[in-house]
């Protein structure tokens, strides 16, 4: 005797969040049953593995039927097929669009193309995330990317509205879209120590300060939050004077050193390295007009600034102190006329470096 057909349908769709997570994580029905058994759902119920299997199947089917709707979450609210209470809808969407940080770290900055998708089995093997889950997450990134690509207006807001995500998740997606669009290099060995949250923070900084939308100019330009502002990048070239003009460089150094003297143990190293570090930062700025250099933005920051400081054993406090004075002292330089650009540049650089300066 075998069960040929077994369904259980309810008027107000009920779902078990635990099973939903197992489904999202790409578990097969049998594996999910195992996990649930080990989790002890059957304790206290006079139910057999068979019952659990049937329940898991029912839930999996429901999720599969819902998946189509989850691809455009707005539909979920006004579709008629499933009667799902609003707070459940929110849960379904939020969990569906949630991603594993190990996974996102692997594809961050990569082109969201078919080629990348083909390599997902490698990513799956490397990260331990099931291939099914990898595909879902990748497709989510791609879907969000495709939708917001054609939209005008602020990026985070667009994502939030079209995918009904929480603010936090919408911001993470904005970062993913931003990285994918600018193709920032994140996979180099030197960058491995950085987490997705580090990058997401930096992306947030870049989006809110260096893009067209950053000016508060809500003329609803396409891609206003996705591309860096061209004019600004041009202006950055002017900062070169800080390192090309010897007087200015010396003056800047002495101002910073006076301010730092006695305040930190790493003062000697700071003084010795000032010119190198300053050159590093200003060179990064000057090169940003070149799209290829933009991709290396993070690797440059690490190589040209973070690594030297780390080898000199600066503390996070030292770093903050140094960057603060480094930025502020430039204002006192009377021959340096590019204060606005400088602030806009250094504001982001400072917060990015501070975020990235850890082990």
């Amino acid at each position, binding site marked *: 005797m075998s069960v040929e057909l*077994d369904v259980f349908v309810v008027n107000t769709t009920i779902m078990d969040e635990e099973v939903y997570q197992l489904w999202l994580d790409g578990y097969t029905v049998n594996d999910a049953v195992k996990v649930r058994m080990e989790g002890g759902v059957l304790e206290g*119920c006079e139910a057999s593995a068979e019952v659990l299997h049937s329940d898991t199947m029912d839930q999996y089917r429901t999720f599969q039927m819902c998946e189509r709707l989850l691809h455009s979450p707005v539909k979920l609210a006004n579709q008629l*097929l499933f009667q799902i209470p609003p707070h459940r809808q929110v849960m379904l969407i939020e969990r569906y669009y949630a991603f594993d940080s190990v996974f996102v770290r692997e594809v961050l900055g990569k082109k969201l193309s078919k080629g990348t998708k083909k390599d997902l089995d490698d990513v799956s093997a490397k990260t331990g995330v099931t291939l099914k889950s990898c595909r879902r997450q990748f497709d989510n990134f791609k879907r969000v990317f495709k939708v917001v690509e054609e939209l005008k207006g602020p990026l985070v807001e667009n994502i939030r509205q079209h995918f009904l995500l929480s603010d936090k998740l919408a911001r993470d997606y904005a970062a993913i879209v931003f990285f994918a669009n600018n193709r920032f290099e994140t996979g180099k060995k030197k960058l491995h120590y950085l987490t997705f949250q580090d990058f997401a923070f930096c992306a947030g900084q870049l989006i809110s300060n260096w893009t067209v939308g950053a000016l508060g100019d809500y003329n609803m330009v396409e891609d206003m939050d996705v591309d860096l502002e061209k004019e600004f990048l041009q202006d950055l070239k002017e900062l070169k004077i800080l390192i090309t003009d010897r007087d200015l460089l010396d003056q800047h150094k002495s101002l910073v050193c006076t301010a730092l003297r006695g305040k930190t143990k790493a003062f000697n190293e700071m003084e010795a390295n000032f010119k190198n570090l300053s050159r590093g930062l200003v060179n990064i700025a000057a090169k940003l007009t070149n799209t290829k250099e933009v991709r290396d933005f993070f690797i440059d920051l690490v190589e040209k600034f973070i690594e030297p400081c780390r080898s000199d054993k600066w503390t996070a406090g030292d770093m903050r102190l140094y960057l603060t004075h480094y930025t502020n002292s430039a204002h006192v330089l009377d021959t340096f006329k590019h204060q606005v650009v400088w602030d806009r540049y250094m504001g982001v650089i400072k917060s990015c470096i501070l975020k990235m300066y850890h082990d």
Partner: protein
Amino acid sequence: MPGKLKAKIVAGRHLPVMDRASDLTDAFVEVKFGNTTFKTDVYPKSLNPQWNSEWFKFEVDDEDLQDEPLQITVLDHDTYSANDAIGKVYIDIDPLLSSEAATVISGWFPIYDTIHGIRGEINVLVKVDLFNDLNRFRQSSCGVKFFCTTSIPRCYRAALVHGFVEELVVNEDPEYQWIDRIRTPRASNEARQRLISLMSGELQRKIGLKVLEMGGNAVVGYLQCFDLEGESGLVVRAIGTACTLDKLIPGSEIKESPLAHGCRSSHNSPVHSACSSQRLSHSQNFSVSVPTLVFTEGGSPRICEFPFFTLTCFPPGFLVHIGGVVSARSVKLLDRIHNPDEPETRDAWWEEIRQEIKSHAKALGCHAVVGYSESTTICEEVCILSASGTAAMLNPRFMREGSVCVYSRFDDASPPSCGFCHIPYDEFNMPFPAQLTYCYHCRRQKVPDVLFTTIDLPAEAAVTGKGCLIQARLCRTKKKAQGEVNATAISNLLPFMEYELHTQLMNKLKLRCMNALFGLRIQISVGENMLLGLASATGVYLSALPAPGGIQIAGKTPSDLSYDQHISTMQKRINDTIAMNKELYNIHPPECIEEVVGSPIPDRQRSRLFRSTSESSDELSELDLSHGKKDAFVLEIDDTDAVEDIQSLLTDAPMPAGFYSCNTEVMPGIYNWTSGLQMFTSVRVYRLNNANLTNQGLNKIFTDLCENLLKSLYFKLRSMIPCCLCHLNFTVAVPEEELIQVRRHTPKNTSPILFIFPINILIKLCVFVCFPGSGENEEQLQFSMELCGESTSSNNQPTAKPSVSSVDYGSFADRCSTWLELLRLKAHTIRRGSVKTTSSSERCSPLPEVRSRSLRSTRSLPCGAPVTVVKMTPLSFLPRTRIVKYLGIINMFFIRETTSLREEGGVSGFLHSFIAEVFAMVRAHVAALGGNAVVSYSMKECVFMENPNKNQAQCLINVSGDAVIFVRESDQEAIPPLITCGQTSTTGADGTT
């Protein structure tokens, strides 16, 4: 020209992509009624078209209005080839024909295709202008209200109960017409859907006519069934109870105002606010005024012939005495229906059965049959017709003269809590041997020792402890045969099956220490080589009846010592189980002390069940279904049957703590219901791999299947405890081997027997809470259910585990949705009010102009309106709510077919999505009528056929129910603040559409 039907196509959304090149669709709509068709313009290149069409007007007879559905077809325009159909919507406009039901149908309907399922949605507005027609000889019966509910609907009062109405129409099944060989499956399915829709419309109209003839204005307990007789045709039949209903008007003349619902609560009697209002609200419905007798001239004598009532729940005082269950079955051979216009044979068959039921009732000294129902089971050309009901004496006050011949033996003096238990028959001239005692309640009248009925427990009945679901299951093998031989074999088997089911029920009843069964439903289904019997009922300990004796086991060979030991261990197990059940169901009758155990006196006695099986009407056999004696029920375990009985007795797994189940509307002994409610349908099909099974083997399998299913339900619903599964409705079927193929063109499938079991268990769930002080605010209670494990464990529930707490099946959801519902309900009713002012001037709306205007503006954006939450329940009420309006009957028939079964997730995936789609369509229709719930919902038919080799499957589903508007009793209560977040997110979502 008595009616003008107007329809307007507003918009579509989520349409499927029909043009692969552009990923878009050029959609237009055809609106068809009768033979008239209108078309909208093509709305090019959009998946969310805004047609905003003119009003399409159909001028039609009201006869057609009743019969025909409005048919809306959405198509994709194609310049070069034929237009592709996207899907259809059938709208039954019957609710618009009654002045008291809905006034407009407006809302989003799923666009349904029999091959692809739901494909997007369409927004439609439908109205009807009826002209008064005073023609005496009219063929229409507009205005007669239909209710599936088997009690007097909540906002009405029964002025008069006229009696039984029945009608039957037959036709050829389009699936079996020659044309089906050349047309597409889609065309064939649509023809069938349309035909059945037409036939049920016609049936309803004809029944309506009979009701009008009798002087009634409504049909209550309307039960419509389809018999898919295959080659020999398609029968649609219906029975019901004609009544004259008066609307209960709480205020003065404001009954038409949707806003009046709000002020109704002030007129409400205090019984409504009590948490046990379910039981009391009956009295509210009926006590309002004294029923009046209306004498009408010349009612059709045919109708009065059967004093049958499809009601299962009655006004207090209506039911005087109950005799017992009466049932009749008849095995028939189907032949082709030659003349669809004169369905005489089918009529005659039913006539015969009804006569038999009537004579059984007479034998029990009763003049009426209540809780009456009819059913069929068909296997190839053999058809078993069954009818059952409860013989009863009714109070003539409610009856129109002539509908029931009143007997003289009447004593109105018996108290209501036990009166119905008193025997209606003569003590010295009993129809069957029975053990009579004086009533344990009033000590004046005689009562039987057990009572079986098909009705719900009367509200006024005195009950000890709680009730529970009792099932008897039976499987009998039968030789494969054809025609006459087969029919004879079946009719020979039937008496034995009935007997055994009855024995099982009796044993299980005793094992639970109960003495009465309510809602008894015995289903027998025929398969090619087996018969299945499933009896379900709700067991109760009636205080008026004597305490049931224990069960005693006796062996026939007492010499053997080890055998004696075996018997005594069995006896001990049984005694332990009885003791345990007494605790479990809280049965502690004071009478228990005088119980005498032992001394097995083998006097064969009593039966409550009258049955007869007949192949032809003159062969009428009555069976004595008697066992043991009252005090000790003796089971002899020498023969294998008894061993089997004991096995089945003891294998019934006890219900997990926190669960209760019954198949009646309310659970006896439980009064603290919450409004948390969930309806579900479960379908399982088992395939028997070994076709050569013995009776015992089959029985064991069958019992296990039932038990497994129940276990599965308990597991799935574990997070809802304490909860009660009410109206648990099992259906079993053994599909024919030949039917395991889709469409007749396919070769014969030689798979072994398929058990469709239970084809649809429609089980409804009411969560109730057992905490102390549960009479309070239910929001709080549900909260405590979710959050505090303490209070749960204080209620002896061991399952307060973290793993469980993650599964929130929606108590919060429920709170959320009801709040939203409430808002929407308000919007809805008001909206409907506003439409009313604009359309029909004869009905004055009391709404101030300003209000209706302001609300009309909210209506202008149909796209943005969030989906109305619609509750579905097989109960006739929603706990802790008040039904304020009945909007009309929902009776829908759907066919779904697939030729890509594997791709749709196999049979389970296919059926799962189909059932979900049916639910969605029911909800959409209710919402469009302005309602927020379906009560007395039932899935009458669910026929499933598959052919895995061809990757095909087909399924037919028929559902029915009453669309209603309800409001919560705790309407005025504060809205929990947490809900706002959910709400904003929805509206946010809508804003972007």
